[in-house]
């Protein structure tokens, strides 16, 4: 919230809403230098005041009435200049050196009345410089008259009579209408009591409402409160009293939150010269180019470092993953090798067992063959010889009974089968010596392989 500086010919008051409504009161500069008063005041106030409104009686503020038809001939932007010329006679400030702010009060078919505030541009500059010197910004300068809200109460109809050294204003609000301001000609007799104020307003046929405020710039009111018969209350605001002063400035602080209905003289922003514009444009282009180059470089550097960091991070994370994959691959390869080795082992074992088994069989089988032949031979069968012939054994003999030949062959075939020997009977011949044809001569072929 902006700081309010209230400066009259006698006192300079600072009000800081941000500091809890702290009020700083100083004597105004004796020489009437508004700049010095502001500097002294801002120096005395705590902290730096960033945004400042100056309420000062240095501003000439009055109602100016002009012909409505003359307003229709000119552009709206020229109205302040026109009113400055109109007010020049009353304010004594040359229009060429005046800073003027206007606010429409009432308009009619014939006449239009504006609330005009003027201040000499030198004084305005002094105020602006003083504020800027203290590190702040001057938001505007205006006259402390015409506050459009009650100072001490906020409800119901009200009327306030303000008596400033250079202006007398009646501000009132009836019902739900907007506040009205009436600038009065000089009051002949000073009104110093609330009751007198109500009487005065009644004499002027101004509706007062239930509540009347009296504000006098320099005179101390004779009484603070007055009560009428029908609940009417009149109150005098004493600007010499700190409480009333704080209340007054607090009301202004609230009002200046939206200063559109007030004639505030604001600093003029002077347009830049073409040269300045060119310089500014070039500077902006240069700044943009420098910014682009810097952005390009910084981005490139950032991307490079980011890429490097990402690569290292990826490498760091990829290491265990690769190792894991390699382990799994190695596991699979080892599994294959184990399977292969076990298969080779099984095959070799089988071959070895077969070889050793065959070796054992071959070592023993001739002895076993002879024993089998000898042990299994029937009594009526005789072996006459065994011949070895081209990979086979030829057993020759004779038998009384022909069936004994086959029985013997069957018996030894069973017994020789584990020895990988097979028995065949290729020849059985009756010799026809006896009546039944016997004896019988036979021949067995015993071969390798069951």
């Amino acid at each position, binding site marked *: 919230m902006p700081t309010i500086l209230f400066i009259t010919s006698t006192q300079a008051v600072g009000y800081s809403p941000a500091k809890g409504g702290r009020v700083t009161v100083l004597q105004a500069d004796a020489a009437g230098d508004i700049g010095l008063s502001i500097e002294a005041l801002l120096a005395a106030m705590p902290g730096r005041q960033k945004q400042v409104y100056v309420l000062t009686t240095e501003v000439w503020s009055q109602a100016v009435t002009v012909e409505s038809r003359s307003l229709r001939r000119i552009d709206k932007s020229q109205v302040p200049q026109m009113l400055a010329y109109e007010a020049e006679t009353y304010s004594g400030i040359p229009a060429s050196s005046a800073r003027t702010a206007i606010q429409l009060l009432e308009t009619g078919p014939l006449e239009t009345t504006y609330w005009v505030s003027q201040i000499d541009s030198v004084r305005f500059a002094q105020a602006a410089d003083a504020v800027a010197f203290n590190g702040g910004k001057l938001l505007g300068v205006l006259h402390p008259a015409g506050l459009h809200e009650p100072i001490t109460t906020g409800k119901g109809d009200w009327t306030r009579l303000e008596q400033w050294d250079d202006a007398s204003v009646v501000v009132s609000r009836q019902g739900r209408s907007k506040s009205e301001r009436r600038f009065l000609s000089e009051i002949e007799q000073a009104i110093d009591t609330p009751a007198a104020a109500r009487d005065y307003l009644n004499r002027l046929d101004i509706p007062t409402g239930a509540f009347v405020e009296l504000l006098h710039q320099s005179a101390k009111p004779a009484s603070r409160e007055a009560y009428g018969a029908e609940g009417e209350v009149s109150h005098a605001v004493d600007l010499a009293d700190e409480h009333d002063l704080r209340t007054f400035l607090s009301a202004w602080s609230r009002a200046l939150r939206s200063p559109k209905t007030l004639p505030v003289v604001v600093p003029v922003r002077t347009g830049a010269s073409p040269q300045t514009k060119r310089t500014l444009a070039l500077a902006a282009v240069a*700044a943009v180019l420098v910014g682009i180059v810097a952005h390009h470089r910084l981005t490139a550097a950032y991307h490079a470092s980011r890429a490097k960091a990402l690569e290292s991070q990826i490498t760091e994370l990829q290491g265990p993953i690769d190792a894991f994959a390699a382990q799994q691959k190695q596991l699979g390869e080892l599994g294959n090798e184990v399977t292969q080795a076990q298969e080779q082992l099984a095959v070799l074992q089988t071959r070895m067992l077969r070889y050793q088994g065959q070796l054992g069989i071959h070592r023993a089988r001739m002895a076993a063959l002879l024993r089998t032949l000898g042990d299994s031979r029937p009594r009526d069968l005789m072996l006459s010889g065994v011949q070895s012939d081209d990979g086979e054994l030829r057993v020759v003999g004779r038998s009384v009974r022909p069936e004994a030949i086959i029985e013997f062959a069957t018996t030894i075939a069973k017994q020789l089968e584990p020895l990988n020997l097979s028995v065949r009977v290729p020849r059985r011949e009756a010799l026809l010596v006896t009546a039944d044809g016997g004896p019988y001569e036979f021949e067995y072929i015993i071969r390798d392989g069951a």
Partner: protein
Amino acid sequence: MAGKKTQSSSMLITLGGPAVLLCLYAVNVRMNPSDAAKQVARLEGQLQTVKAAEVPFAQSLQVTEQLRLKREELEDAKFKLDELRRQASAMMRGGVDGMEELDLGKEVNRVLTVAGLRLVDDHPVTSGSDSNRMLKTLTDATKQLGQTLTEQMSKEADNTPIELPPDLPRDVNPLEWMAAQRELRTGRFDGPQTRSSQLRLVGDYRSMVAGLEAVVDACPGVVVTSVAFEKPTVRTRGSLPLIWNIEYQMRPIPKSLASDIEMTDVVQQPQRPKPNSSENASADRQTDAQADTYMVAKPIVRGAD
């Protein structure tokens, strides 16, 4: 108000150019990102992928443990395979030299003579005629074992370096040992070189049965391949003598296996020496080799009546 507007518009015009320039640059940066920006975007995507593929520590530990177990399993299998190959190689190589042939012949003659047979003639058989005798199944088994051994050894010979065992005895020449290993690995295994001999004997049937059974027991390197007998044309008194004609084959028997083949009939897998027992490794290997046993399908030979 109009002044303010004019001022604002002039400022807009003044700053419009740089603003447009700035906008164009921003659009260009947005629409055409640099290679570095693209790389960063690509790497960020890659990082997300890598993070998603991150392997939990427990899983990694589990795989490491599986690897260790699998390596042990492989070493164990290879050790058993090496042992078996070594033994098979010993059986599939070598030959009977002249001295051994003489010794074996003497032993066979002695055993048969003790059994009651009388030696009439003894002469070696020309080599290469074994195929005519009853050795087909043994020859097939020998061929299969030799072929298997040759294939397995040849596959590994090229890729597997020969390493000296840490417990190689000091009296063994490392170069000779390695040469022997190389020969064992890369050579062919066609079976042992055998020698055959023919005997002509006179004796009765029972003596021959006893004699052959005694040969089986006493001479592990001897395989009787053929037996024939005939009756003599001239009758003699007493028991009937028969004229026997037998052939036998002399096979080299590895010294470490000779006693085992004869006596045992159960296969025992070789036990891999424990790593901690390095002190007795050499001694253990020798005893292991002696303890290695093989199945020998030795038929039951019934006793004589």
